[in-house]
């Protein structure tokens, strides 16, 4: 049965290997130069005071060159869509095509039970799906390692400066691609078993997968572990976004973009609070004089009036806990869907 499964999987495997080879060539051709740029940037062995500056310069250099920025984005997109493509073209037809063309009557009347048939089919396809997606991810991780290190050193200032917790990076690095691939494949197979026609099953697979992949970073991932909360002095904030409004800047909105002493933390929300810990948006009257509002004295003035910044965040040390938790959830979903396929094929025989 494994041999048959491999034989039937031949065309898909060749396509996947060709795509991976093309990606590998692209990365191998540009990776060493990227690494040499990093080596020349002086980030490794930098003095703490200058690291962030050097890293930002390096990222700016890459961004200005265009190619690397494009390649980086291309790689990320490829890894993001791979599980969806696999679900569509490997998962959805897996059972649906057999039912549609009637070959299920041939496959299921050989001396192999349906359970075994499905076990092998899902096993071979699922493992291949995970291998391809994780393979792409590892290649990208190797290629983009200098960018990641520069971001880790505090480099910022452009689109390349995405931290490990940013949606695009989190979903394309580490072990999450494994979970997405297994889930996409199992989702496709289940849709095919239910709908029994490959093309509608593909459409349904794409729709559900897209919804889940959008919902996860927005609503599920931030709540996998209870966020921590920190209240810090407004004068200690490094990177901020400040909006002032009303007459004479009578209202303000202060967002923090990083947390002092917690490099690489994932900031979920932030806002100014008063001494009692209540959110505050009204500028203390004493700070509304034009010279203060528009000058460097604004934050010290806020601080003098007891205003601090409250930040809810996930510390950088939780990165792997998040990776494992999310991957486990997706793998569990994949296993549940596969289990449903078994029930469906065995109980409601077609």
């Amino acid at each position, binding site marked *: 049965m494994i041999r*048959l499964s491999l*034989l039937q999987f031949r065309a898909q495997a060749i396509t996947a290997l060709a795509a991976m080879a093309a990606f590998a060539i692209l990365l191998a051709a540009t990776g060493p130069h990227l690494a040499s740029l990093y080596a020349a940037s002086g980030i490794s062995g930098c003095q703490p005071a200058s690291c962030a500056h050097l890293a930002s310069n390096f990222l700016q250099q890459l961004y200005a060159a265009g190619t690397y920025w494009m390649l980086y984005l291309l790689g990320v997109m490829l890894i993001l869509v791979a599980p969806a493509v696999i679900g569509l073209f490997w998962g959805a037809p897996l059972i649906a095509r057999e039912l549609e*063309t009637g070959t299920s009557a*041939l496959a299921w*009347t*050989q*001396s192999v039970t349906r359970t075994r048939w499905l076990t092998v089919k899902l096993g071979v396809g699922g493992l291949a799906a995970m291998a391809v997606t994780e393979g792409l991810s590892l290649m990208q991780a190797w290629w983009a390692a200098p960018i990641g290190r520069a971001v880790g050193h505090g480099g910022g200032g452009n689109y390349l400066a995405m931290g490990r917790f940013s949606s695009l990076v989190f979903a394309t690095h580490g072990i999450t691609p494994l979970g997405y691939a297994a889930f996409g494949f199992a989702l496709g197979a289940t849709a095919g078993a239910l709908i029994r026609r490959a093309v509608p099953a593909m459409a349904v697979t794409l729709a559900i997968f897209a919804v889940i992949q959008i919902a996860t970073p927005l609503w599920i991932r931030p709540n996998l572990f209870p966020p921590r909360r920190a209240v810090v002095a407004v004068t200690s904030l490094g990177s901020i976004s400040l909006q002032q409004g009303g007459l004479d800047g009578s209202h303000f909105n202060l967002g923090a973009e990083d947390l002092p002493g917690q490099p690489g933390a994932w900031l979920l929300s932030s806002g100014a609070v008063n001494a009692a810990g209540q959110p505050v948006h009204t500028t203390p009257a004493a700070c509304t004089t034009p010279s203060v509002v528009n000058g460097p004295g604004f934050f010290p003035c806020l601080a003098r009036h007891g205003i601090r910044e409250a930040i809810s965040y996930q510390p950088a040390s939780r990165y792997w806990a998040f990776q494992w938790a999310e991957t486990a959830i997706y793998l569990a979903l994949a296993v549940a869907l596969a289990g449903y396929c078994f029930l469906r094929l065995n109980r409601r025989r077609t």
Partner: protein
Amino acid sequence: MSDVIQASGLGKQYRRTWALRDCALAVPEGRVVGLVGPNGAGKTTLLRLAAGLLAPTCGTITVLGERPAAGPAQLARVGFVAQDTPVYVRMTVAEHLRLGAWLNPGWDNDLARQRIAQLGLDPKRRAGALSGGQRAQLALTLALAKRPALLILDEPVASLDPLARREFLQGLMEAVAEHGLSVVLSSHLVADLERVCDYLVVLVASRVRVAGEVSPLLASHHRLSGPRRAPGTLPAGQEVITESHTDKQSNLLIRTNEPVLDPAWTVKPVSLEDLVLAYMSRTGDDAPARRQQLGVVS
């Protein structure tokens, strides 16, 4: 001799419609059984239940003494060729044979190769490029080479031209003669069945209308024509299957195990086609009631 297929109270429901309902059937071993019936009688459903492709909604069916598709051993003993003889269009003929070898412990590779060679099929040819007849032959080869004890074929020749149909049935008969397997074959073409079957089952609306060996069935049915008379006046032991009357004449198709002695009748033998059509057109459960009613009127 035991039965290869035994069903009782067998039913299969799709959403609200019953494809097969309350079907009782016994198919003896060592026969080539022709299963006939009008479209929608439940032939395909019955055969797919027997092959284990469907699970019954109610009732029981045993095939070779076990639940269909109960396990690899049961599956190995039943060969199945589905309607329209599906094969993997992107796989070559040789790959189909490898599939058979991989998935069936009792695979007879010599038989498979010989048949493919006899048929003149190019092993490197993709199954999708084969003609309908060749595809059916490939499907039959797969089913035969697993060396089943029972071979089930669902309208295997329905879409074939007359020549391909004859070749297919010839190949089937050769295999039956050589390996002595039991065969159940559905068709709505009585002429095909006449050529290959020695046992007949007529299925109408899920019910078996008649089942038995072909020659005794033909010997016990007669076509009678003579002066008009009420069927109720026939001797006991003469069962009317169909009847038609004009003002002066009655035409009956009857079943009896005794000779027809009444000199008023002209007695003619029936063909298998006559027999099948008679049972297919006979309305089921209300047939005896209607006969009596007619008897009273005339």
